[in-house]
């Protein structure tokens, strides 16, 4: 083979990284037959499962966002997936169709997205950790079922890899147009937990977090993805399985005749029995009392609605996660999520190179909205730029929070044409406003 002189700097880095990754590999889960870095060149994995083990050997690997979601789901203990293929989320279904049977879990391709959300809710009530994945059109179909999971306080996770809408829109193009739908999509007041990753690694981490939060708070949690994040590949190093924190639902300890399906402890989190374990409870999409039976009493209705609200608003500190990037000395702040936040980071690097002090506030939890952090940003910074791939959704939330003060100016960058907002677009706006 022909040799080419490698850039010496790169070589050094490469050796260091290899050494690092070797150190990290040591973990009890790893079976001896996993090929080591050197052997991999010589021994091509002969079977699919070997290859997957190699992929899972927790070294640095190339992974797609949708792949990271799939492995995140498996590592979080998801053992039930029902879904319907739709671009750009299909890879999740394809990977889980191959992986779940190996682990004794269930993969089923349903007749539509409505059936998918229903099946995962039913499975969850029977004790499964369940997840489905879809995109805009399917997510719209699922709204009624998401409301049912929320009113019956059934843990489940819906991954929505956003594409440009409305309607069929542009199936392979990115957009951030479902932000408000994840909050208000199902009819009636139904508080939401929605997480929003910005990288492949974070897709893995937030999938695990989504499953954990759904189990902990007994609700349908949405993982909102950008098409670009779902389809992009990145070099990532996954944590050892031993370091993955998994939360399982609390099981009732009382005998069946004392069991209340919606019992409250002080944090509004209640134990959850599964069908087939002797508890013989009733769930209903009708407004219900604490046993789950339908009610028309306004006091019981108010109690139920309050429970749904309080379990979110009383736990804001546990639910909200934000990233603050170069904000300390910034005069201008950018508020952005997902892929747009990455364009913002690149723009910030360029702006700071030219001496303009800019920072980024990025929500990892988009609902409940990080009100406190945004209020602080509006108090401290003169100008807030809100770039987003839609016609103005995040900016409404920012404007909602400006009323209790601050002279800061809120500036929009909006695009809904299937193209990303580039770092240059944001830099231009920074220069315009500073």
């Amino acid at each position, binding site marked *: *083979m*022909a*040799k*080419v*002189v*490698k*850039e010496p*700097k*790169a*070589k050094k*880095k*490469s*050796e*260091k*990284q*290899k050494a690092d990754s070797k150190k990290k590999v040591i973990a009890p889960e790893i079976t001896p037959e996993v090929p080591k870095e050197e052997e*991999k*060149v010589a021994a*091509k994995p*002969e079977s699919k499962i070997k290859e997957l083990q190699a992929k899972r050997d927790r070294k*640095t*690997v*190339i992974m797609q966002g949708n792949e990271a979601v799939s492995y995140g789901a498996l590592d979080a203990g998801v053992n039930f997936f029902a879904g319907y293929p739709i671009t750009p989320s299909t890879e999740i279904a394809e990977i889980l169709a191959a992986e779940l049977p190996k682990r004794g879990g269930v993969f089923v391709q349903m007749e539509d997205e409505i059936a998918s959300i229903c099946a995962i809710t039913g499975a969850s009530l029977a004790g499964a950790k369940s997840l489905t994945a879809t995109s805009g059109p399917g997510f719209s179909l699922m709204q009624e079922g998401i409301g049912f999971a929320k009113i019956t306080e059934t843990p489940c996770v819906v991954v929505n890899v956003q594409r440009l809408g409305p309607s069929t829109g542009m*199936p*392979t*193009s990115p957009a951030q147009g479902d932000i408000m739908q994840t909050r208000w999509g199902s009819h009636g007041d139904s508080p939401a937990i929605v997480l929003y990753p910005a990288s492949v690694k974070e897709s893995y981490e937030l999938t695990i977090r989504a499953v954990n939060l759904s189990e902990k708070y007994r609700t349908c949690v949405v993982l909102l993805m950008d098409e*670009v994040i779902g*389809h*992009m*590949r*990145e*070099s990532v190093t996954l944590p050892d399985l031993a370091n993955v924190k998994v939360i399982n639902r609390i099981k009732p300890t009382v005998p069946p005749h004392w069991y209340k399906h919606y019992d409250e402890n002080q944090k509004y989190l209640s134990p959850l029995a599964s069908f087939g374990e002797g508890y013989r409870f009733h769930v209903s999409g009708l407004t219900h009392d604490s046993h789950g039976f339908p009610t028309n009493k306004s006091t019981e209705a108010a109690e139920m609605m309050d429970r749904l609200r309080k379990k979110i608003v009383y736990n804001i500190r546990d639910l909200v996660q934000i990233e603050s990037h170069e904000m300390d000395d910034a005069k201008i702040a950018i508020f952005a999520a997902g*892929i747009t936040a*990455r*364009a913002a*980071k*690149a723009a910030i*690097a360029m702006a700071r190179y030219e001496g303009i002090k800019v920072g980024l506030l990025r929500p990892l939890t988009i609902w409940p909205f990080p009100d406190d952090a945004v209020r602080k940003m509006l108090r401290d910074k003169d100008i807030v730029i809100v770039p987003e791939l839609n016609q103005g959704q995040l900016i409404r939330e920012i404007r909602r929070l400006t009323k209790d003060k601050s002279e800061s100016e809120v500036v929009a960058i909006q695009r809904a044409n299937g193209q*990303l907002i*580039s*770092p*240059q677009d944001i830099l231009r706006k920074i220069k315009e406003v500073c």
Partner: protein
Amino acid sequence: MKNYEIRLSGSGGQGLILAGIILARAAMYDGFKVTQTQSYGPESRGGSSRADVIINNREIYFPEATNFNCLLALTQEACDKYLFDLRDEGTLIIDTTFVKNLALAADNTYELPFTEITQERLGSPISTNVVSLAFLIKTTGIVSPEALEESLRYTVKPAFVSLNLRAMELGFELADNYGK
């Protein structure tokens, strides 16, 4: 190394996204941070297709190539569309089987009929993606040939490893002999 942005462009079915994955994995083997994104239409064959690979020593913020250090264009349409986003000192590699007009004469331009050569030497145009990728890697030195081989062995299906290794060697050979 600073941010190094590569765009592989052409039409659906030319295997450019696979080439992007192979390049990204090779860069990872060499210890770099890397992102690979793509854009394609609904067609599995035909339509326009591109894969972007960004290679860096540090965290990569924006994963889409906006100002390329290197552009590979396998069709006239792709060449016309992306040529002007190539940096002044950037490397342009075109497949003259399909690219007949070059709107801009750049310094580092490499022109070869990759598809024709692949058809002739390997009996089928199917490996044009790997031939041109190997050429690109050898010409720019962005990743090591060893890493490319390792990545190829890992990424492509076992039945196609030997074909792709021959394609890689062909690409290296074309690069070594270019202009001679």
